């Protein structure tokens, strides 16, 4: 039977399917090239649209638009716009969110990859992934009604009483904390919760992909488990972990719905983490639908452009960091 089949396939008569489909490789290659060209093309198209559609706004306000100021104008009626409160809000909430989320997620990832008993690993993994699947609007709702008034508000007032009294930090933690918890701090907390599953899952996979020889070698040299994790595994997986943090940062910068619901959407002059603020993504989401004047919608597109460049710049910077770290660890491993 097998021989018969072989005979059919090897006979001259049945070579035609091969001829017909033999050109698969170049076609496949072309498809792949097309697909990979699509990515830079899409980025260029988005960038070009944002640049083009904000021409009048850029001409009108110039660099003054992005000038850091505590007394920014955002007056759609007088057509006077400055973007600093939004840039500041986006940067501050994202940075604080990363600062809150990274230690937590890396810790959880280490626990999951290295220390967790196997019966607990699967349910924990599921829950982490479930956390990533919750829509942001649900986070926002939960934030408004449960998390902000019950957790963020007390934490915030504690911060204003302690950190807010330290001379150098006072402006950043100046109270009073709103009773509803609506503040930049609230947004940062919600963002931290939202980006935690991403960072955790990727870091866990990075740690799991480290060859066991590394663990065994360091344990055999007499290091404790803590030393093996801290001095061997984390440096080994550092570039991957940085990549995970980068993913989280990307989500934090662009997150719109949940932040809009909890940040207070207020263009305030206070730089404090504890007062209501605004982000770039929120102001676009809030005002674009009813931006009646041409300049108003152009200005909002310009904010989109700033957000686009900010995200690009942060990505490039982080990529460079990952590269330099990867090169360094490679050299260390070689030496």
């Amino acid at each position, binding site marked *: 039977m097998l021989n018969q089949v072989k005979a059919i396939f090897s006979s*001259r*008569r049945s070579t*035609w399917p091969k001829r017909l489909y033999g050109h698969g490789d170049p076609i496949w290659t072309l498809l792949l090239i097309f697909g990979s060209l699509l990515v830079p093309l899409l980025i260029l198209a988005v960038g070009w649209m944002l640049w083009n559609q904000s021409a009048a706004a850029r001409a009108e306000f110039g660099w003054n638009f992005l000038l850091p100021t505590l*007394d920014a*104008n*955002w*007056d*759609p*009626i*007088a057509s006077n716009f400055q973007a600093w409160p939004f840039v500041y809000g986006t940067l501050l909430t994202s940075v604080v969110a990363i600062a809150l989320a990274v230690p937590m997620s890396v810790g959880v990832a280490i626990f999951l990859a290295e220390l967790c008993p196997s019966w607990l690993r699967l349910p924990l993994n599921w829950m982490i992934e479930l956390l990533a699947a919750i829509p942001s609007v649900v986070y926002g709702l939960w934030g*408004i*009604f449960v998390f*902000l*008034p019950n957790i963020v508000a007390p934490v915030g007032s504690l911060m204003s009483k302690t950190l807010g009294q330290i001379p150098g930090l006072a402006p950043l933690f100046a109270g009073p904390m*709103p*009773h*509803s918890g*609506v503040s930049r701090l609230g947004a940062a907390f919600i963002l931290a919760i939202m980006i935690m599953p991403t960072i955790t899952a990727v870091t866990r996979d990075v740690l799991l992909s480290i060859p066991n020889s590394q663990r065994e070698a360091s344990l055999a040299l007499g290091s404790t488990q803590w030393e093996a994790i801290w001095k061997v595994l984390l440096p080994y997986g550092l570039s991957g972990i940085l990549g995970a943090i980068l993913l989280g940062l990307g989500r934090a910068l662009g997150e719109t719905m949940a932040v*809009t*619901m909890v940040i*207070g*959407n*207020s*263009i*305030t*002059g*206070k730089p404090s983490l504890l*007062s*209501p603020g*605004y982000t770039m993504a*929120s102001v676009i*989401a*809030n*005002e674009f*639908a*009813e*931006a*009646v004047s041409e300049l108003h919608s152009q200005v909002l597109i310009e904010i989109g452009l700033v957000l686009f460049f900010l995200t690009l710049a942060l990505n490039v910077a982080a990529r460079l960091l990952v590269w330099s770290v990867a090169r360094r660890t490679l050299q260390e491993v070689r030496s």
Partner: protein
Amino acid sequence: MRKILFVLVAVAMLLSACGGAQPTATPTAAPTAAPTTAPAAVPTVAPTATPLPPGSIQINGAGATFPLPVYTEWAYAYQYVDPSVVINYQGIGSGGGKKAIIDGTVDFAGSDSVLKDEEYQAGKDLQMYPILAGAVVVIYNINWAQPFPADAKIPTLVLDRQTLVDIYSAKITKWNDPAILALNPDLGGYLPDASITVVHRSDGSGTTEIFTKALSAFSPEWKTNVGAGASVQWPVDKAGNGVGSKGNQGVAAAVQNTPNSLGYVELSYAVSNKLAYAAMRNKAGKVVQADAASVQSAMADFAGAFDAKLTANIVDAPGEGSWPIVGYTYLILHTTSMEDCLKARKLLEYIRWSLTDQGAGKRAAELGYAVLPPAVRDNVLAKLGEVTCKGQPVLK
């Protein structure tokens, strides 16, 4: 090898022959189908004689979200009045609606704000028609300084026009400010010595436009410093006690969650969610509550104030029973350049139905909107009669 190729080619030719044969085969079947589809093309001749197939005319509208609940209900109910018409209305915001009608991508637009001169020029033959009015009310959440006696009914907060402006300008920042105490002698001792968190809409909205128009009418200072629009620069934000929330729901949630706060929402929203809202001392000096009667009174006060485009600013009405924070929501139509005359007629019939049908008006009132008083409605119906299609009046 060659033989196989031959067979393939032969099969391919057969297939293509079959494909080619199909179109020639259909005409034999067509004549039987034709009589049922043909009347759709000529209903303008005898509109009532042969009813159109259900759902055959799609009318698309887009715009303001403020009247979206009632437009949705009307569109649904109208299917029973005229089954041939399907009305789609998308709440994309007044700005989006205006752009869509100027670009001609929709048949009608809804808007809470009035078209500007350059928009009239861009849209050439646009006309606005007031359809409903809505009121904006001030909701509040106060942690009373002392508990009320168990059997006492908690008095409603009363504000006057200047006090409201001062609160939103951050000139009055405490609940026990003398100005508020003077208006609320019943609440003396209960109003706390706490700062007011002032909530406003963060998204551009017709509600904000009506509210800021009213504040501009109340105070010339507000008019010059802030002005009126779908989104404005709130003085309370700069002062640090302002909070913005998305949508009526967002404002209501923020007020409910924040002790000693105050915000503005549509009357229909406050009513359906049973929120406490303040009474106002109006221009005539009388304390009024927001309800259908006080909104209609405001419309009646300004019944003669319409301009050629049928727009009128109806905030701060002088009547004794008039609620001061009221605005119209409009439909926008092309008056002379509608292409499809049948669709134009169906659209105007729908608008006329929504203005005149008792059930439609009743449903709108239940949802918290105020229907037009007769004087205003006759004005609008007369203007609707002027719409033409290809030179002929659409409504006879």
